[in-house]
């Protein structure tokens, strides 16, 4: 017989996150059937429309995914009646699949030829992503989300999002606290205005003219600290269903690629760099719920010492390796490069979310303003590093500001859509960004959704770009790949406009 598990006061678990391999530029998927099987609740309990969480869903996640109405199959105790093993009768495994079809307004250039890639004005990702997820309670107070994903663009299978939590609360629920070990800063968050679960969440677009794959446009570095790149541990408190505090620290977890488990030049190259030592992450949010309404405003901050993969590292590695070879001693790359060639990022973000979760109508307004200050290593600015051929950055300090605002509406969780606007601006740094150095971009996402079932979602999306790389001339920033291709005399932002037809199903 069963009802719901009760978390009592207890010791804090030590959670060790092990293993990570390939970085995937992955969209986190949600609407997880294992949670429904575990709790007996319908998707609508936790989601307005997946993956956006309702007030209940936020509490479920903060409670460590442990709420269950299933009886435990194994429930061992010791002589002190202390629980020694708790296993559910049903492992919470699910398949999450995303299929995407993209149609570009104009065919991208062929990298090797001065004319468009013939017949390639569209791409069909079947699947775009295919994930195997374990999600749910691991013990009475520990829950986990463990995701393994095949990503067509990345071209392989690798560890995707991981979140392992310990959570407990007082009997009056005034205080909920927990510890989370995860591999993606913001994946642990429960609001949807900023971070890994930002709405809109389905986007398969590759912005070809900016030369940036996957993400499409320049954004805060925090978005790049995904699975396979970092691992962190944090503690959080949620007071009175309203006030949320979190402190976390992330360490580089670049490993596995290049045949070595340490951060060496090869691994740095894979992810564009690595976190040096620990990067602290802090989060404060305030939520207020009334009637059908829920509103949140929050701030988050992250400070990152970043070892960039550019120039210096490979040169240093080569020199060190050569020196070691000359001296006849084995060369072992250091775990952390203490070279002084470090860029320091300070990210500050304000996010907000208003949610109306009514009897039939659901609508919301959410978004963020993220400001990033990037202090470039003096050696990379002045090109004084060993093996330097040219400086990497123009400015000692660069800044980037991103504004994102989204409005969404759904009727009966069946029909709906959203409009999202993103604008990013920043300091001009020609060496870092190419062209005249502006990282500016601006685009909108228009989306229509049809959900015949809550775990089966059809998505029609149009991505409209007004500004890419500040619409400068020459427009194409990826000079090396498309050097002012004569086949593209009039490249403009709208060439990137893309129709996306997607299917997202979880079962």
């Amino acid at each position, binding site marked *: *017989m*069963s*009802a*719901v*598990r*009760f*978390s*009592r006061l207890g010791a804090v678990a030590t959670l060790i996150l092990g293993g990570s391999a390939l970085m995937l530029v992955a969209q986190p998927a949600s609407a997880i059937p294992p949670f*429904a099987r575990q*709790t*007996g*609740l*319908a998707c*609508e*309990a936790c989601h307005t429309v997946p993956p956006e969480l309702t*007030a*209940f869903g936020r*509490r*479920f996640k903060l409670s460590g995914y442990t*709420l*269950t*109405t*299933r*009886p*435990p199959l194994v*429930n061992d*105790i010791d002589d002190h*009646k202390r*629980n020694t093993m*708790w296993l559910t009768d049903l492992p919470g495994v699910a398949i999450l699949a995303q299929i995407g079809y993209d149609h570009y307004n104009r065919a991208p250039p062929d990298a090797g030829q001065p004319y468009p890639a013939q017949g390639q004005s569209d791409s069909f990702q079947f699947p775009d992503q295919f994930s195997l997820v374990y999600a749910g309670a691991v*013990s*009475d107070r520990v829950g986990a989300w463990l995701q393994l994903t095949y990503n067509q663009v990345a071209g392989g299978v690798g560890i995707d999002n991981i979140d392992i939590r310990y959570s407990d*609360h007082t*009997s*009056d*629920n005034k205080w909920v606290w927990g510890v989370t070990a995860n591999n993606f800063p913001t994946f642990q968050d429960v609001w949807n205005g900023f971070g890994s679960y930002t709405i809109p969440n389905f986007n398969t677009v590759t912005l070809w003219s900016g030369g940036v794959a996957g993400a499409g446009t320049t954004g805060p570095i925090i978005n790049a600290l995904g699975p396979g790149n970092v691992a962190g541990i944090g503690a959080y408190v949620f007071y009175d269903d309203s006030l949320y505090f979190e402190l976390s620290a992330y360490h580089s977890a670049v490993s596995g690629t290049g045949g070595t488990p340490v951060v060496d030049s090869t691994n740095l190259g894979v992810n564009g760099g690595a976190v040096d030592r620990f990067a602290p992450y802090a989060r404060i949010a305030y939520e207020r*719920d*009334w*009637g*059908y309404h829920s509103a949140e405003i929050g701030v988050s901050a992250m400070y990152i010492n970043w070892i960039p993969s550019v120039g210096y590292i490979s040169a240093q590695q080569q020199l060190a390796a050569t020196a070691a070879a000359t001296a006849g001693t084995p060369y072992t790359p250091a775990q952390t490069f203490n070279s002084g060639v470090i860029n320091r990022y300070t990210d500050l973000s304000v996010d907000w979310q208003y949610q109306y*979760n*009514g*009897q039939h109508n659901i609508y919301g307004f959410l978004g963020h303003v993220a400001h990033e200050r990037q202090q470039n290593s003096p050696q990379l600015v002045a090109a004084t590093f060993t093996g330097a051929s040219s400086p990497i950055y123009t400015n000692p300090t660069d800044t980037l500001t991103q504004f994102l605002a989204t409005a969404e509406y759904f009727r009966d969780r069946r029909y709906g859509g959203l409009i999202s606007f993103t604008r990013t601006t920043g300091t001009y740094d020609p060496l870092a960004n190419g062209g005249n150095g502006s990282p500016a971009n601006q685009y909108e996402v228009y989306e229509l959704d049809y959900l015949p079932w809550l775990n089966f979602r059809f998505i029609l999306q149009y991505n409209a770009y007004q500004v890419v790389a500040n619409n400068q001339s020459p427009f194409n920033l990826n000079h090396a790949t498309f050097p002012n291709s004569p086949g593209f005399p009039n490249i403009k932002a709208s060439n990137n406009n893309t129709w996306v037809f997607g299917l997202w199903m979880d079962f």
Partner: protein
Amino acid sequence: MKKLTSYSLTVAAIALVTIGVRDVHSATLVVPPDPSTLNAKALVSAACSKCHGVNGVSISPLFPILAAQLPGYIEAELKLFRIRGRSDPRARAFMWGISRGLTDEQIKGVAQYFSSQPPVKGSGSSNPALADKGKLMYENGAPERDIEACTVCHGHSGEGVNTQPRLAGQHRDYVVTEMWQYRSGLRENKVMQHVTEKMTDDEIAAVVDYVSTL
């Protein structure tokens, strides 16, 4: 041979009884992760409160206020949910799952817990004329159309009677939704379906308005 058989049967019977006793014994151990042993307060804290509030005062009108609700009503509904005897959309989405493993004792405990919480006042009416019209309907019904007065089952002050729910202090929108669901047959209840089918839209609006003043 016959003696041997009877001996074997006796041994087997003793063994079965022993196993049975052991099972009963192990099922009554109080171990926190075994949900069937949770008391009402723990259940409310871990589950019910997420929608209905720790004190039974829900924030969203999607979920009814349970503070001071009659224990007989809560008990009856929870038992209905458990056997999937109520099939309105929200019962399916939330309560079928939540109630599926509750024991009778737990149901009783939860009902007692919420019924002993302090009641809340209704939100009030912004349209006194409408509320007055609703009051007439609430107290007298419409005998000419075979519509019973609400007071018969829900009491003069909306305090409820036995297994008929307390309406006083309930979310206005929740009452509206339930009335419409009774009328459309989404929520099964013969009496309420009979009553709401005969009421006009205006009469439903008036009664709901009056109930919100209780």
